[in-house]
């Protein structure tokens, strides 16, 4: 037998190097290890508890105060009342016009965005060469990085004027203006999710169809798009969620009259959305009044819509995962009969497959061109006009004459303070929570409900966080409009995102790494800190950076919690209010006549700040992807 010939492996007695004891019983070294492990576990548990308590507290707080309006006016009156007029002689609190406004703006936005996005997604995934793809994909993603207040500014200064003149209307502030802006904002979301779905249709299906003599377009139409249909539906629903939750851009361009358009198809009518109502009225509401409760009612309606949108998207995605294999198979068999053989069907066909492919590709290219043109116009408008307004004094000075003179330094610094504080709160809590949920808990009904709550808040409109921060931190806890209130509000807003992205990053680490470590006698914490976290770090970092970008560009959550329009100085304590770039731009644009150059300058600086943060995220992701190939 072979055994006799093999040389023995030298036995290395490392016990000289290491501790002498043998056996598996209790030992001092083992006790220390267990203590460290136990302590870390408890710390993570506490952090997770705080974060999860915060998540549930926000939801309960909103529901509790929202329920008051049901007691005061009745559920039916609140939901179907056709008049919203809280400031009138006989205040009316019917949200029907607001819900109608939200749905109308969203529906028209989707009518514009969906064809353009799907066209772009097909173009990127199927038609573009790899060189074109590497330019167009990030360009469309760039649209997602532009802060909503910058969209609003663009809408106010260009779009509404254009609508007023082009359609000969008394005012351009309208449903149409809101929908166009929202469409541009939803396009990157829909495009990237739809593109993922299209790209993940297995190549065999593509080849199977081409091998039957189908043209590229027939393959796209009959095999690829049907195969990716559930992913595309999820993309559309996520885009809808994005459109419903948007506050600032809509608020700035829709005219905000709480009326139902008459006739209902009049796209030039002003409308008011649920989010816009919160943004406009929150500042002037008396604590505990019926109006105050009505605003919470509005927030609960938004929360409910978010829940519906989230659950629908989740159901579609989970069904997609179940049928990902069988779906395209079925499509392929069905398509085989649908693809007419070139030689056998010379009659009864009006257009040849080649011609219809040419037409389809032309339309698809056109949709990409429209999207890129929108990006180009917005960027050019702001960069060209904004760069002219930038000067050393503008960047380092304080504002004077209501922002018409001087600079925006306090706003730049204020934004950095707000974002830094938010990150300091959300990052440790969010990461600890995700680590606890993924590494320490099994999948139980409890963790599922925690995840559902986190998801709910993840999709919740930022203005709802603003309302929570205002009602709880500013009014109830008596923080006043202050830096700390803004930091906590922003922190709570990005907490769900950080939890979810960290969870995803941890989940992507194969279980075999953990097993390998445990099999060497590593403790849980040694395994997590040395084997699981290092490779997950780029993913966690990307999530964190994207959150920073989002926090820096948001106006709605800080509008009533932290921001003031004019301040000559930086805050000297956490209880003072601050200036912030997005809020400054909002007020300059909507309330200060004659400050257009300063508006452009502020928009430019804000854009630059947010886009460079996103750029950092893209670079981290790219480096990570390179490292993964190794």
């Amino acid at each position, binding site marked *: 037998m*072979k*055994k006799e010939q*093999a*040389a*023995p*492996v*030298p*036995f*290395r*007695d*490392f*016990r000289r*190097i*290491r*501790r002498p004891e*043998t*056996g*598996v*019983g*209790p*030992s001092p*070294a*083992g006790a220390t*290890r*267990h203590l460290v492990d136990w302590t870390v576990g408890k710390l993570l548990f506490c952090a997770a508890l705080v974060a999860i308590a915060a998540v549930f507290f926000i939801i309960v707080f909103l529901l509790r105060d929202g329920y008051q309006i049901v007691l005061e006016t009745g559920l039916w009156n609140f939901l179907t009342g056709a008049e919203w007029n809280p400031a009138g002689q006989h205040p009316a609190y019917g949200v029907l016009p607001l819900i109608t406004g939200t749905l109308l703006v969203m529906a028209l936005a989707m009518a514009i965005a969906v064809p353009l996005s799907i066209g772009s997604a097909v173009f990127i995934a199927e038609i573009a060469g790899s060189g074109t793809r590497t330019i167009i994909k990030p360009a469309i993603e760039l649209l997602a990085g532009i802060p909503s207040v910058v969209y609003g500014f663009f809408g106010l200064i260009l779009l509404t004027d254009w609508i007023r003149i082009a359609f000969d209307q008394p005012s351009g502030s309208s449903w149409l203006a809101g929908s166009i802006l929202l469409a541009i904002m939803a396009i990157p979301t829909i495009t990237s999710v739809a593109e993922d779905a299209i790209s993940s249709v297995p190549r065999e299906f593509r080849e199977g169809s081409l091998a039957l003599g189908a043209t590229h377009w027939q393959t796209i139409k009959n095999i690829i798009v049907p195969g990716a249909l559930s992913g595309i539906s999820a993309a559309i629903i996520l885009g809808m969620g994005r459109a419903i939750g948007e506050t600032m851009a809509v608020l700035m361009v829709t005219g905000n009259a709480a009326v139902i358009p008459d006739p209902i198809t009049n796209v030039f009518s002003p409308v008011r959305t649920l989010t816009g109502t919160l943004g406009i009225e929150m500042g002037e509401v008396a604590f505990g009044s019926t109006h105050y409760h009505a605003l919470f009612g509005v927030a609960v309606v938004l929360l409910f819509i978010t829940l519906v949108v989230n659950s629908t998207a989740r159901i579609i995605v989970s069904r997609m995962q179940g049928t990902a294999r069988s779906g395209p198979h079925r499509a392929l068999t069905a398509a085989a009969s649908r693809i007419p053989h070139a030689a056998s069907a010379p009659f009864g066909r009006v257009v040849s497959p080649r011609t219809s492919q040419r037409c389809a590709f032309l339309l698809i290219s056109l949709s990409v061109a429209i999207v890129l043109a929108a990006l180009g116009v917005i960027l050019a408008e702001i960069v060209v006009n904004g760069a002219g307004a930038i000067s050393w004094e503008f960047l380092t000075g304080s504002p004077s004459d209501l922002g018409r003179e001087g600079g925006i330094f306090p706003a730049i610094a204020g934004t950095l303070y707000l974002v830094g504080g938010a990150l300091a709160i959300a990052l440790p809590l969010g990461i600890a929570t995700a680590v606890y949920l993924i590494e320490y808990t*099994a999948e139980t009904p409890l963790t599922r409900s925690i995840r559902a709550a986190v998801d709910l808040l993840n999709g919740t409109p930022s203005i709802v966080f603003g309302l929570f921060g205002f009602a709880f931190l500013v009014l109830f806890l008596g923080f006043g409009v202050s830096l700390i209130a803004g930091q906590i509000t922003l922190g709570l807003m990005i907490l769900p995102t950080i939890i979810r992205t960290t969870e995803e990053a941890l989940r992507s680490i*194969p279980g*075999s*790494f*953990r*097993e*390998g*470590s*445990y*099999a*060497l*006698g*590593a*403790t849980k914490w*040694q395994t997590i800190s*040395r*084997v699981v976290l*290092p*490779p997950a770090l780029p993913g966690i970092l990307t999530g964190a950076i994207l959150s920073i970008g989002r926090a820096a560009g948001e106006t709605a959550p800080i509008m009533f919690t932290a921001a003031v329009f004019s301040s000559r100085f930086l805050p000297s304590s956490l209880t003072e209010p601050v200036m912030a770039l997005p809020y400054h731009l909002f007020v300059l644009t909507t309330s200060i006549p004659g400050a257009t150059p300063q508006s452009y300058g502020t928009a430019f600086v804000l854009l630059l700040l947010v886009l460079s943060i996103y750029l950092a995220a893209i670079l981290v992701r790219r480096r990570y992807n390179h490292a993964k190939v*190794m």
Partner: protein
Amino acid sequence: MDNSTILETRDLNLWYGQKHALIDITVRIPKKTVTALIGPSGCGKSTLLRCCNRMNDLIDSSRITGNVLFNGEDIYDGHADAYAVREKIGMVFQKPNPFPKSIYENVAYGPRIHGVREKGALDRIVEESLKGAALWDEVKDRLHEPALALSGGQQQRLCIARSLAVEPEVILMDEPCSALDPIATGKIEDLIIRLARNYTVVIVTHNMQQAARVSEYTGFMYMGELIEFDETSRIFEDPGEELTENYITGRFG
């Protein structure tokens, strides 16, 4: 228990939720030998292996009764330390699972978590472990390159080196060659035979020729039960049970 037994189970039963995966397993694994566990898929051989270093603790739904003794100590006893158990009883998995670190860091990981910090000592452990796993000559010039750049067979030998570095007494191997080509498999088999001079190896395998080539003892499992345990030559040439014979001769499984 006699001196030559290192690992022993007594009336070991294990459930995954409702599923009774191991039924009354009593077996003695002799010291410094290679013991093979064979049997059709789902017969419980991997589960039995994972009981021996408490890797089943990581599966929440698992529940066990009976004893597993390592050098006479019950590793499931309330005082036993699961981490110390796994330090003494290492494991190599079906699919090579090196960490996404360098070759050096993969091997040094174990000693580091057990408190070795001195660079010289770590260097020595890394070198000797890699030599022990017959990988040193192939990687000595690129110790700081990523382990994932190695071939599958090299990765598996790295995983063996990694487990040698924490100086275990027993190495459990769960179908260590099933993801490898025949040449890499041959190298691992040679290595297993050499390892048995100083370590106890328990190997789960689907491949009966492999069991015959490398092991001195073989256990045949079927539907959660240990049907037969004996010297490998007996199992293959003159099995005591008809079930074993049917399996060996390829009538099922």
